[in-house]
């Protein structure tokens, strides 16, 4: 079979064009990626520079704390309670085989305080508060409210973005800590109340194994990082959106997806740094 039947000059030209097109696409997405990275970094610097100006107008922050933090509270509390209850149920079924069901408190507390508290709160926060922030800011851009502010010599970053960013950064650790506390009580309710683990053992083993600095504070540091990144992504995607209804919907989707990736990826990095050695 002669290969010349397939590899004609025309075939080679077509394939080469296709390859070039593909490489060009790669280059374009690389440009897009780095352009976005640069824009978001500059945007973050502007936000950080705008924080001192916000302190003279705390009203703006309080309104955002309400919509970002307080309104996220129900889903956080309910999820925390159920995550704790499920952990207790699963942990009990495993530990009872070894006759070590007294260690249930440790298992529940360590998994919640170290991992699940910050991570699940981060994911829920991205879904509940981050998407709302992106949609709100994106719609402001699409309806030219941000441009209108600039016309009135009001900096939209100071007026709109900074309060939302700071509110997310403050709310997220508070929500994560509430999640952890509620989760541990959810585990207590199932473990001690329904499954009959000894109450004193539940708390005593937890107290002896959970360390305030190594476990609780590292979990809080994680939640600060997740809050920072998730809110940053949310406000940037909103501010950088294509100002159409389709653009806003895509930005909102991207916020949730990127935030979830960022939270899970950073969680691995932070865990390796904190508990790795």
């Amino acid at each position, binding site marked *: 079979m002669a290969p010349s039947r397939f590899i004609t000059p025309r075939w080679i030209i077509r394939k080469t064009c296709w390859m070039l097109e593909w490489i060009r696409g790669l280059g374009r997405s690389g440009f897009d990626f780095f352009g976005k990275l640069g824009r978001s970094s500059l945007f973050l610097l502007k936000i950080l520079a705008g924080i001192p100006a916000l302190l003279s107008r705390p009203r703006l922050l309080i309104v955002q704390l309400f919509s970002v*933090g307080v309104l996220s509270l129900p889903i956080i509390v309910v999820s925390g309670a159920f995550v704790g209850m499920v952990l207790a149920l699963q942990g009990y079924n495993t530990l009872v085989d070894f006759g070590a069901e007294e260690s249930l408190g440790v298992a529940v507390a360590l998994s919640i305080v170290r991992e699940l508290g910050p991570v699940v709160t981060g994911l829920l926060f991205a879904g509940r508060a981050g998407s709302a922030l992106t949609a709100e800011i994106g719609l402001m851009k699409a309806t030219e409210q941000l441009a209108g502010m600039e016309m009135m010599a009001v900096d939209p970053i100071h007026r709109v973005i900074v309060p939302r960013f700071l509110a997310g950064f403050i709310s997220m650790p508070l929500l994560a800590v509430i999640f952890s*506390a509620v989760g541990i009580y959810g585990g207590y309710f199932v473990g001690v109340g329904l499954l009959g683990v000894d109450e004193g053992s539940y708390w005593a083993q937890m107290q002896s194994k959970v360390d305030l600095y190594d476990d609780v504070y590292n979990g809080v540091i994680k939640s600060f990082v997740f809050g920072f990144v998730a809110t940053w992504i949310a406000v940037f995607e909103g501010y950088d959106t294509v100002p159409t209804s389709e653009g806003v919907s895509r930005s909102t989707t991207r916020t949730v997806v990127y935030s979830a990736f960022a939270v899970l990826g950073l969680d691995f990095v932070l865990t390796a740094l904190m508990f790795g050695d």
Partner: protein
Amino acid sequence: MKQNKTTELLVGMFIAAGVAALFVLAMKVSNLSSFSATSSYTLTARFDNIGGLKTRSPVMAGGVLVGRVSSIDYDNQRYEAVVVMEMDQAYDQFPDDTVASIYTAGLLGEQYVALDPGGSEELLEDGSQVEFTTPALVLEKLVGKFLLNSAEDDGL
């Protein structure tokens, strides 16, 4: 203005709830919490070795929870561990020749104090000391003893 005040109130409550949750997490760890709302009396017992006993470990009599360990200390003069137990007031009929031993619940479980009542007419009172105690079993010592015995049996 009414709306603003409600918002401020809710935000304040949110922040307070966050701080309170952190406080709860810290208290769980730092073990500052006192418990026991019901009335109680205390007993002390001295052990050569308490093994893995901890404060708030259970005190059992016949497998029933009758109290909790409230503090553990070490007596520098007599080289013994001093265990203070907070006993439920409902169970205050232990004779003064009760034996306190430290056992383990299950293979990997927590250690607890077991009280075996004797036959004396006199009862233990609030603040009194359990005279007869058995220390916790240390696995390494047991293994060592077992090896020694088997070596003797072999006539070595």
